[in-house]
């Protein structure tokens, strides 16, 4: 765990302690279970966003993707009676194609990630609404899919399975980002794409894969969200979720310039964001102030981090100015 992550963990504990002292319901099993579920759901795609931000890119289409893929998944299972494992594979497959399209447009046609995924945000949302004719997609009344429900909204020992899914995905992604050759190349590409290319790294491939990973994890999250809400309202489902993911990554130490960040960081970022939402609810703050609280905390967090880095750079410069002892 890096120092940065440690700081974030301490902040989470402090905020948690304050909320608990003001309202002991914070640590009640029901509240913890619900919060863990939300952490799991948001964590799944925030981790994906982390891969994209690592390259210095951004994926704004995440929220719309969750809506469109949610509609498709619910329709396949609920209306067309597609066996759910097939539907899961198809949904993830469509997500993969979306990520591939983003990656190719960015690396092959040299389009800007912001533009590509902003268009994705508009297109996917529009298609979801057009396809359903603005109607809510849902399962037939009384329909039940025991295995699927166990996997997505089930609980073991009171812990929601979405949280376990996030932990599993997080563990795999930790290995990919911090222990695989691909992960190391991601760091290099994010820091200096040109120099990475001169080091023999296939930068286009690395960047494209980052968008594919993001889209695949978003597709998985879309299934979890659809099962959690049981119905998908195409115009509001997943709205602003891309911003939650970006906020979590930035809180977790990612730099939008690329090359900085960790899996543990982004997960802690998600935890802190959900804790803040919870704080707003439990402390009786009007929920309309939700976004304001989140924004203020992110601003303060990033500012503190930057000041720390500046201090570190100044100390380094100081050290360089001191004459070195000549042997």
């Amino acid at each position: 765990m890096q120092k940065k992550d440690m700081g974030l963990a301490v902040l989470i504990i402090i905020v948690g302690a304050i909320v608990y002292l003001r309202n002991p319901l914070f640590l009640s099993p029901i509240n913890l279970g619900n919060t863990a579920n939300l952490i799991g759901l948001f964590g799944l795609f925030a981790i994906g966003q982390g891969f994209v931000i690592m390259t210095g890119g951004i994926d704004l289409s995440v929220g719309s993707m969750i809506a469109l893929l949610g509609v498709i998944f619910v329709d396949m299972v609920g209306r067309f009676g597609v066996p759910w494992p097939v539907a899961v594979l198809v949904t993830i497959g469509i997500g993969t194609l979306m990520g591939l399209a983003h990656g190719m447009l960015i690396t092959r046609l040299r389009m800007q990630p912001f533009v590509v995924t902003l268009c994705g945000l508009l297109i996917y949302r529009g298609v979801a609404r057009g396809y359903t004719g603005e109607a809510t997609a849902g399962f037939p009344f009384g329909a039940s899919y025991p295995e699927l429900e166990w996997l997505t909204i089930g609980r073991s020992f009171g812990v929601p399975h979405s949280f376990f899914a996030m932990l599993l995905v997080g563990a795999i992604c930790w290995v990919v980002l911090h222990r695989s050759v691909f992960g190391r190349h991601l760091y290099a590409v994010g820091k200096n794409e040109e120099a990475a290319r001169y080091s023999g790294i296939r930068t286009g491939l690395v960047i494209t894969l980052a968008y594919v990973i993001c889209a695949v994890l978003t597709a998985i999250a879309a299934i979890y969200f659809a099962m959690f809400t049981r119905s998908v309202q195409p115009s509001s489902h997943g709205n602003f979720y891309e911003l939650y993911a970006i906020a979590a990554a930035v809180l977790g130490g990612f730099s939008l310039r690329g090359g900085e960040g960790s899996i543990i960081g982004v997960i802690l970022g998600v935890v802190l964001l959900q804790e803040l939402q919870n704080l707003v609810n439990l402390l009786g703050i009007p929920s309309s102030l939700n976004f304001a609280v989140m924004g203020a905390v992110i601003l303060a967090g990033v500012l503190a981090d930057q000041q720390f880095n500046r201090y570190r750079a100044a100390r380094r410069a100081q050290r360089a100015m001191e004459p070195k002892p000549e042997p």
Partner: protein
Amino acid sequence: MTLGTPSSPPLLALENISKAYPGVVALSDVSLTVHRGEVLGLVGENGAGKSTLMKILGGVIEPSAGRIVIGNAIYPRLNVMESQAAGIAFVHQELNVFDNLDVAANIFLGREQRSPRLGLLDLAGMRDAALPLLRRVGAHFGPDVPVLDLSLAERQLLEIAKALSIDARVVIMDEPTSSLTLSETRTLMQVIADLKAQGIAVIYISHRLSEIEACADHVVALRDGLVAGELARQDIRHDAMIRLMIGRDLKALYTPPAAPPGDVILSLVGIATPAWPQARADLDVRAGEILGLAGLMGAGRTELAEAIFGIRPLLAGTVTLAGAPFHAHTPRQAIDAGLYLVPEDRKRTGLVIEAAIDENIALADLPAVARHGLVSRGEIGRRAAMQRGKLGIKAADLTRVAAELSGGNQQKVVLAKWLSMRPRLIIFDEPTRGVDVGAKAEIYLLLRALADAGVGVIMISSDMEEVIGVSDRIVVLREGRVAGALDRAEFSEQSVLRLAVGAN
């Protein structure tokens, strides 16, 4: 002239390499050879073509003509991969380290060792493999240190360790000691000796001629893209190298000032900039004189100008402008005091290249062309038209974007921006880079006209012909310090170069 052991074929040969850019010939028919275990010293002034030649060898740019022979393989051009595969390793002048990774990760980037079973990173293996490499370059840091915590000198050693790790047959070092201390330089010389003993060849590019004397077996001097001459081991001496580097016919460019220079307009005492935090520079400029600021790349000239202009922090020292203490924290303060900078990179910092010509001219002084806080298009146009007449800007329509103009006319637009205000001192950073010959002469006349109007002019230039031909006085910077000042009577390529590289 071929040097080296005739019995063994050369490890590397560049044969008749030329490189032409539109309007400029960077290299013309350059040939050189390097043998196993040999150190080739490559010398030449700024812009002589050394870096272009080495970029061709590194596969970064393609030659226009000629071929490269490495061992038995012949290449009309190389790409980066081929160059690396052929055993050519680059220690870059501008460091390409990744400061978000640790030392071992940098050394093995793109060639990571994998664990046998899962194919994941073999972190321990790479650490172990990095240790002896770091020891060979005399580094005092371990393989798992984050590069962020390394000094510039330590990063340089890391780059050399990286070159060693790819089993290089030829290691190219481009100004490797520019950020090293004396003891680190000594270590580097030892590293080079070790490489030689292992049969590895080194191409050593440096302005520090004493280092070349110390380590080179063979010297090639470039001048204006041509091989000016070669020196065998026994002939490598400071004087001989300088003689090969200089020796051009200088054209008469000089127009004398209309009147003797006036009072000191700008005075610098003990100035330190982030580029050379330990060095101190002192400098006086008089009203009505053109002061040439010469020096090698990296001597800190641009940084000095930017510090005075308020772009970079001034670490130490005092600036006096027209008799009053002056410290610009922002360019706005400098501009308001009548101190202007015409920056080196016209396209990026000199102009808003995609904006109209007249808007560029008005940009620094918008309040003057505004009525009730609203910018007046008509006033902008009137102002620009006046400057067009004064400076001879060749543009029919001043509302066209600046990018459409030639280099020389772009530079005149930058000038027009400042001349429409009230300059006291203008710093020109490489004013004629990328400007054709005719426009150069016009710019020189403009500099003189400015000086004659009582403005102090500092001209930073790496073009020897320009420095000697245009300046009334030359100050030479070396490693952030003033190495010496020359009056017109003392001007010569040799005297400037001696100060720039450090005579001994």
